[in-house]
């Protein structure tokens, strides 16, 4: 058998269910991988904390299995991004303002997965409050890319991507607002799923942009995503936007042959501003689809060039409202030296938030303020309407949209820290998916000559994530496993 840490979540499930491995052996293997990496001269820094109680939970899980009480996800380890609440655990969002915050309840998705036997093994590093594309804006320092430690793993769920690609966890939960699962997945050479808005409850996920936020999954095999989705979906009375979906029986995925599919390839993502190496990979991926009997057609969708502008108005506007709750009164950081209530708000927030969070709160309040609201916020919401209509029109004629996940290869740590607009433009290929609230899967499609991973998105209609995963499974079995 391969090393435990090389196994995907579904392979581990098979070994556990066949009593060939114990849950404790599995948790220990990943813990040892994490500890070994900590001794590296430049550790990945994907985990903020590997949980002390993971081994005990694994022992309890093994006992349950012995008593024939194993549940659907019994004993499977999962890393969790540090903005998804796990009852009793610290959840910082990579921010000083929540440095000591201990979650009083679990998010609905974590609760559902735990009830099916998942063992949360650790919490992963992230850009502060999810605001960043490189996993460098964190009080815990930058996370590194396992494929090249001088490069960023992408962000904001960079910790989750790094621990999965670095074989310190078989799979991880991340969150997306504008590409924060798919970009790190692409940079680290793994799968990254942004489900449709509403597929997974947002209850217990620290809010950033509420009309865009969604829990996502990072793994090395599409089947792992189906396994977690099967047990994670369903309406939640705590989140009115959660959809009434039933994914029972989707795992294991039935591979879907792309024969007969009509696929749109927007030319806006195949021209200027996109790295040639990435364009070549997209062309090769499109050829694979054609060989399978699908039709791939280039389409014009000029609005895609404007989606970063729409996104960076709407997301900061929603963030500026969501982050008013950090006022130093009830929880989080408080400046004890403040001389008045207003001083307390200002001092606590100013010391608690990092520069990028302050920048986005500022932009949000600017675009919402009197005199600027119509020109920016209202305008962005109107153009978002147009975007949704244009995407819907594409799906009248096509089954899928194909696009690069990132316009560039993983970049050096520090390269874009002083140029926020350049950092924002890293999201050019991903934000339209969140604005349109549709699902997208970033598929690892090989590397550049110097070994840097490249991801390509399969983007579907709302609630078609299982279809995307089933198509990806065919690709994974025929091509992905050869890489």
């Amino acid at each position, binding site marked *: 058998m391969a090393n435990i840490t090389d196994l995907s979540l579904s392979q581990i499930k098979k070994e556990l269910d066949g009593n060939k491995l114990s849950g404790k052996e599995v948790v220990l293997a990943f813990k040892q991988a994490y500890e070994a990496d900590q001794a590296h001269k430049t550790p990945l820094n994907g985990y903020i904390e590997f949980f002390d109680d993971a081994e005990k939970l694994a022992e309890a899980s093994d006992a349950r299995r012995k008593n024939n009480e194993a549940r659907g996800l019994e004993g499977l380890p999962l890393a969790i991004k540090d903005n998804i609440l796990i009852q009793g655990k610290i959840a910082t969002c990579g921010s000083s303002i929540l440095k000591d*915050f*201990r*979650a*009083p309840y679990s998010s609905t998705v974590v609760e559902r997965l735990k009830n099916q036997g998942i063992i949360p093994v650790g919490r992963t590093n992230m850009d502060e409050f999810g605001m960043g594309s490189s996993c460098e804006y964190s009080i815990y320092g930058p996370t590194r890319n396992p494929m090249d430690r001088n490069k960023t793993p992408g962000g904001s769920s960079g910790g989750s991507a790094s621990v999965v690609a670095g074989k310190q966890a078989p799979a991880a939960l991340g969150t997306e607002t504008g590409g924060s699962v798919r970009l790190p997945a692409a940079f680290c050479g793994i799968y990254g799923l942004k489900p449709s808005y509403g597929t997974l409850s947002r209850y217990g996920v620290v809010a950033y942009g*509420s*009309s*865009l936020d969604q829990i996502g999954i990072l793994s090395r095999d599409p089947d792992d995503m189906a396994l977690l989705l099967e047990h994670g979906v369903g309406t939640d*009375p705590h989140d*009115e*936007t959660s959809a009434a979906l039933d994914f029972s029986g989707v795992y294991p995925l039935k591979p879907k042959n792309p024969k007969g599919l009509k696929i749109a390839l927007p030319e806006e993502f195949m021209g200027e501003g996109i790295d040639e190496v990435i364009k070549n990979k997209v062309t090769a991926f499109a050829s694979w689809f054609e060989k399978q009997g699908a039709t791939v057609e280039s389409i014009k969708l000029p609005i895609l*060039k*404007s989606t*970063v*502008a*729409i996104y*960076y*108005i709407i997301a900061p506007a*929603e963030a*500026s409202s969501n982050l*008013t709750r950090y006022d130093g*009164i*009830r*929880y*989080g950081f*408080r400046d004890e030296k*403040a*001389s*008045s*209530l*207003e001083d*307390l*708000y*200002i*001092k606590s*927030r*100013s010391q608690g*938030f990092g*520069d990028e969070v*302050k*920048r986005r*709160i*500022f*932009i949000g*309040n*600017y675009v919402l*303020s009197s005199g600027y609201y119509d020109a*920016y916020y209202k*305008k*962005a*919401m*109107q*153009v*978002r*309407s*147009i975007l*949704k209509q244009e995407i819907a029109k594409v799906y009248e004629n096509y089954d899928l949209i194909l696009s690069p996940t990132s316009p560039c290869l993983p970049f050096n740590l520090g390269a874009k820290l002083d140029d*926020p*607009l350049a950092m*924002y433009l890293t999201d050019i290929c991903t934000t339209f998916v969140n604005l349109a*609230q549709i699902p997208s899967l970033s598929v690892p499609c090989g590397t550049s000559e110097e070994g840097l991973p490249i991801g390509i998105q399969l983007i579907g209609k709302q609630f078609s994530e299982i279809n995307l995963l089933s198509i990806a499974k065919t690709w994974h079995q025929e091509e992905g496993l050869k890489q």
Partner: protein
Amino acid sequence: MIDDKTLEMVLYLSRLEVSDQQKLNFKNQIGDILNYFDLLKNYDTSDVNPDLGTEVSEQDLRPDQIQKGFSDDDVKSFAIHFEEGHFQVPRILEDFLDNREEE
């Protein structure tokens, strides 16, 4: 580029303070970002309804039943200062009290 008055106003709305160097960075960086947003001026939106992001088509009403909330111990586990069922905050009537003392 945004002017100093607007910068100060929005910082106050945000309940944030930043150093003079950061103010300068903000003016330049946010100026660039606002210029980039001008892309959206190319769209005629006179007849377009804003997309609010979430559409809850009908209100999902729950039965009016008492549910378990946090115990005091739960709240103490995450609160900054919590005593006898209350979040404690600094004295906020200082101006009022100081004036009274002077009288």
